[in-house]
């Protein structure tokens, strides 16, 4: 394992400290692994979080126009309720707090428990659950779809609505509307290494890619021979388009890197995806290419489409000064 770390047990705290050090606009609560906005304002508070290893998620999305607090768990593990409660308290400015949760059993159980406990202290709390990963069939029986890169759009749009003075109900509504209109699909070409484990969880043969791998390195739905960029774009985009009808609509497009894939390749993938969307009469309103929701050093990428209407467009285009999402 080659990583720039000290003790594998300390990666999360040292990472957050390193994040906090270059960043005068945030406060870091080391005991709780919480990063929150310094500037307070009477508005709905937004809290997101989850396991670490997905940087810049979630701390990088704390800022004006996005999140008020980010709560970090251990690598790939949801934070416990005590941390989340701290995040809720820091985000609370008296107008209630919205939790943006990714659909993993661990996240949901911890955030729900935190919500219950924080409500006892008279904070008004609502939550939404992001489930954008079309690799997984949607299901009401099992946990259902995971939340992946599309979550960043939910942060952005709910954040803009809150910044604009929306009520908790309104912010929740637009967050849910965003979730209903997001679809993502990813692929991976190489594994990541948990600092504490020290070796890759799996190996992929030289010519194999894994479709639909989770952002925690959970195995994907299919291993196939690696195609060229055009083929990869086709597989990812078609899977999304099969799941939801985007034809004729305006979208926000995110081509997200998983951490180990260079920007050059993400741009090449963006080129192919954009060509497909053009050919299907899907208008790209805005494009985001970069590492937004990663899995440590995993190589690979995901594609996210968000169907826009006038309100979502306006909210997406509103300014944000979060360190890792400038608009």
């Amino acid at each position: 394992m080659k990583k720039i770390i000290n003790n594998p047990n300390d990666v999360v705290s040292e990472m957050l400290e390193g994040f906090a050090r270059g960043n005068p606009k945030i406060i870091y609560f080391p005991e709780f692994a919480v990063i929150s906005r310094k500037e307070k304002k009477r508005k709905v508070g937004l809290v997101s979080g989850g396991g670490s290893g997905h940087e810049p998620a979630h701390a990088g999305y704390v800022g004006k126009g996005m999140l008020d607090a980010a709560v970090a768990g251990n690598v790939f593990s949801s934070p416990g309720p005590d941390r989340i409660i701290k995040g809720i308290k820091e985000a609370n400015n008296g107008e209630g707090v919205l939790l943006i949760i990714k659909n993993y059993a661990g996240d949901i159980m911890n955030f729900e428990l935190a919500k219950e406990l924080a409500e006892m202290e008279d904070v008004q709390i609502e939550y939404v659950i992001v489930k954008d990963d079309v690799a997984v069939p949607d299901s009401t029986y099992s946990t259902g779809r995971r939340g992946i890169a599309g979550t960043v759009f939910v942060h952005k749009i709910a954040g803009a609505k809150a910044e604009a003075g929306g009520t908790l109900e309104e912010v929740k509504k637009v967050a849910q509307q965003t979730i209903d209109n997001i679809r993502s699909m990813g692929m991976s070409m190489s594994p990541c290494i948990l600092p504490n484990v020290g070796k890759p969880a799996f190996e992929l043969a030289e010519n194999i890619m894994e479709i639909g791998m989770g952002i925690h390195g959970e195995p994907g739905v299919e291993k196939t021979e690696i195609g060229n960029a055009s083929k990869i774009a086709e597989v990812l985009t078609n899977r999304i388009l099969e799941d939801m009808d985007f034809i004729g609509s305006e979208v926000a497009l995110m081509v997200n890197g998983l951490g180990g894939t260079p920007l050059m390749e993400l741009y090449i993938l963006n080129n192919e995806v954009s060509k497909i969307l053009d050919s299907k009469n899907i208008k790209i309103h805005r494009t985001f290419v970069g590492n937004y929701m990663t899995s440590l050093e995993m190589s690979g990428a995901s594609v996210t489409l968000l169907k826009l209407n006038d309100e979502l467009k306006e909210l997406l285009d509103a300014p944000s000064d979060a360190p890792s999402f400038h608009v």
Partner: protein
Amino acid sequence: MGFKMSSADYVDYINYAAKIIEKDGEYITALDAATGDGDHWINMDTGLKKLVSMEKELSQLSLQDMMKKIGMTMMSVIGGSAGVLYGGSYIAASKVCAGKDVIDCDLLGEILEAMRLDIMNRNKSEPGFKTMLDALYPAVEAFKSGKDAGLEEKELLALIKQAADEGSKSTAAMEAVRGRACYQADKGVGHIDPGSVTMAYLIGALCDWATKLSN
């Protein structure tokens, strides 16, 4: 003469269990990597080591407070699914320990039952969903049926341990409904659920420890 487990004894059990988990890192990690995110062993190992480091403090608490403290610690230190599930179940268990000085065989049964209920309620899980519950659930059933059958304490403990172990192994054939394996196309069929393995280890270790105290 039945076993009587004090807080201090329980902390000894935690020490013993921590060593068992520690030893089996490769296997448990591989199980979670096969269908999940590969962190289950790290999670359990970190949590138990943390408890071991608190042994002084824990062994001086009342049974109820110790159980609660264990629960809060696991929730906070481990995080993830395992943290909140174990954490919540220990907090539930602390309630049935109210006013008790030691865990005897009957209280052990109540504790396991309280844990089982809490885990089932936490995320609406049932046996057969391919989770840790598939070790805990049959262990509680074994306790009940063994009791009804009038088994001797050591036999009963052995039966519980065996039920947990068999329950865990039976997860291999199950389709996952909860936990990360449910994202798989094959729902993890063919793979044992890692959480059921650590649950079976912890139950087995607890039965061993109680058996030792039975002498």
